[in-house]
């Protein structure tokens, strides 16, 4: 029965794969593991992209805002970019977290494609990303006026995501602050 047993190996491997895929179906790759929800943004002190100063968590507080994780190596970020510009034109404050990227490439990208961000945090080593639990770009965090993370969206923010998920939350946060 020895050699015959060996022929069952592919079947066993496939069974393991199928179980993984089954587990995978129940998981949404765009869903946030909720560790940071309703917790303040991790403390950081990082350079601002293209500027000389440093920025910290205090710089993104004051109003509800989006924190968008992006990089020039990220294909989907390019897809997302035009919509972020639209949002910025509507007056939604967006801060950028330029994640594990080359500063020059990132600045070129902003010059070429337009810049929707108030400013960009240059997270070259991905340290802030690690604290945030970023697993890939693009990701967008909704912060309230005190810098507490209220929601995370992994993946591209497009019109549908904005209108069905982020905008209602954003409006609710804005109302709470008395900002129209």
């Amino acid at each position: 029965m020895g050699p015959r047993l060996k022929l069952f190996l592919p079947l066993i491997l496939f069974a393991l794969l199928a179980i993984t895929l089954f587990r995978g179906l129940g998981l949404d790759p765009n869903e946030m593991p909720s560790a940071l929800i309703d917790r303040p943004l991790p403390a950081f002190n990082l350079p601002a992209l293209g500027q000389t100063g440093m920025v910290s968590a205090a710089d993104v507080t004051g109003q509800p805002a989006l924190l968008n994780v992006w990089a020039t190596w990220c294909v989907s970020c390019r897809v997302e970019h035009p919509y972020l510009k639209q949002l910025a034109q509507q007056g939604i404050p967006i801060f950028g977290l330029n994640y594990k990227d080359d500063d020059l490439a990132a600045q070129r990208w902003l010059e070429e494609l337009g810049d929707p961000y108030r400013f960009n945090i240059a997270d070259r080593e991905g340290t802030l990303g690690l604290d945030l639990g970023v697993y890939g770009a693009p990701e967008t965090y909704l912060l309230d006026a005190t810098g507490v993370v209220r929601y995370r969206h992994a993946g591209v923010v497009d019109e549908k995501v904005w209108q069905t998920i982020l905008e209602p939350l954003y409006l609710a946060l804005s109302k709470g602050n008395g900002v129209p």
Partner: protein
Amino acid sequence: MIPEIGHFALIIALCLALILALVPAWGAWRGNSVAMALAPSLAIGLLVFVGISFICLTTAFLQDDFSVKLVASHSNSLLPSIYKFAAVWGNHEGSLLLWALILALWTAAVALFSSQLPLLVLSRVLSVMGGISVGFLSFSLITSNPFARLLPAAPADGSDLNPLLQDPGLIIHPPLLYMGYVGFSVAFAFAIAALLGGRLDASWARWSRPWTNIAWAFLSLGIMLGSWWAYYELGWGGWWFWDPVENASFMPWLAGTALIHSLAATEKRGLFKSWTVLLAIFTFSLSLLGTFLVRSGVLTSVHAFATDPARGMFILVFLAIVVGGSLTLYAFRAPAVSSRVSFGWVSRESLLLCNNVVFLVATLTVLFGTLFPLIVDALGLGKVSVGPPYFNAVFVPLMALLVPLMGLGPVSRWKRDAVERWRGELAIPAVVAVLCGITLPLLHAPYNIWVALAVLLSSWLVLGLARDLWQRLRSASSAGQGLARLTPGYCGMLIAHLGFAACVVGIVATSQYSVEHDLKMSPGDSRVLAGYEFRFVEVVQVRGPNFVADEARFEVTRDGVPVASMGPQKRRYLASGSVMTEAAIDAGLFRDLYVAMGEPVGSSGAWAMRLHFKPLVRWMWLGAILMALGAFTAALDKRYRRQREVIHSSGEAVLRGA
């Protein structure tokens, strides 16, 4: 009315597929030849009804029937007709119907072109394919009905096809890709039929070979078109991203490459029987897995379809039945004892074995990299993503390992060969290859060691082929007669291996030598890039059928001689409002010039521009076309059409090259 006819035809097709899956298989089991003989006509009936259904959906698109939900959300009255046609498969439901249509096409083709097959085998093969059709047709009808209506509130106009998909390359990319994916179902069905029959001899390998070659050729073309499309349409000059969806098409290709070579050994020498059957199952399973990954939403990707967990569940169950069922059958029926055919370590057999190992490792590497984020997530260890560095780090050395062996392949002999003989045959090619590797990269400064290595390996491969061809021609009385004596199988191998060499050079040269400049340019500015002067003349407004665009006019000269006029565009599509970059490319055999527009900078009329110089980038796609051509040529070999008795008695077939 027409959509309802389509829907109805699809239901009839499902019924026919069910009968095809059950009745001939039952006939084969009970020895009932009447039931078995039904199979070919059922297969053709299946094609007719899926065809009617597909035509009905196409008609709905061409006639702008926006009461059909699918048309309303993926088409628009302003869309040019050709794109209305392409929009049929530019979405999940329609592409699934296309998949079912192509499966029916392959099934009918097997029914029509297999008159030399014993009825027993044919009925089993067609039944297996009918079973796969049942899966896909019910998937379509239950979870993704393309004919669903939007009544009574039909919109006045549709919301337009994704502008990324409004492109000539994308009209034929999905059909070609599916021809490949689905084509592997034939090899799969033959393997299952052989397992069911308990006869894993050389004949099933010979029957599968032409089908596998054709499927592989289509898949190569499909992948090539996808890469080419990404290059000129996505607007940043890349051509491969190791994206999960790309990987989904690449894995069956890699496994299929191993299968083609393993089938050769099984047919010619009766070797690796169980292994080849497993590869056939594996290859088609990867096609199905690709479908699962693309449509279930378990992985994020730029070009995944709109996803739905119910669909994912359906494909997973289907996958479990098809793959689980066939692997169970394999475990019980595959010959457990290793074949008594022996071969020496220095022989064509062991080279083919190496090929199999390399391609299998490559497939598993890609599979692992694609699924790793999912596995980590499923184990609750967090979320990760796997990027190009991983794939490149594993893939490049594997290919570098493969090519030296590929050079030996054609000159090697079956059974037992001698290293001394190889040394005698290949000493000159080896020396010339080293010389080429050293000298050819000198044509392009600065000297690049990776390009040198790629040229060295490719010329080794090409010269090995040339040496073997020369040997064959020399033994004939005249060159013409020698050429006439070459079998299509041999010519196909020659062309495909040449294509592979071109691909290697193209990929390495492009990655190493490309020059890219992103800069701000105003009309009147010029910029020199790799000896070419790009002059930005002006920006004009142009209007297309369903978009308006800013077009930048460029004049390119080299040493004062005009080379090209280029007009990259920034398009705004009217229906959706989305903005697309349309790059301008001046293509050439030895270099591409590439200009894409970014955004306007400031108010002075300046634009961000992206200028690329890409040497030998065409070689990559040309190589893929040659590979496909080679596979088609090999499938033409007469011996696949000869009666089986003849081949059974002939020992000389064994001695001829693969």
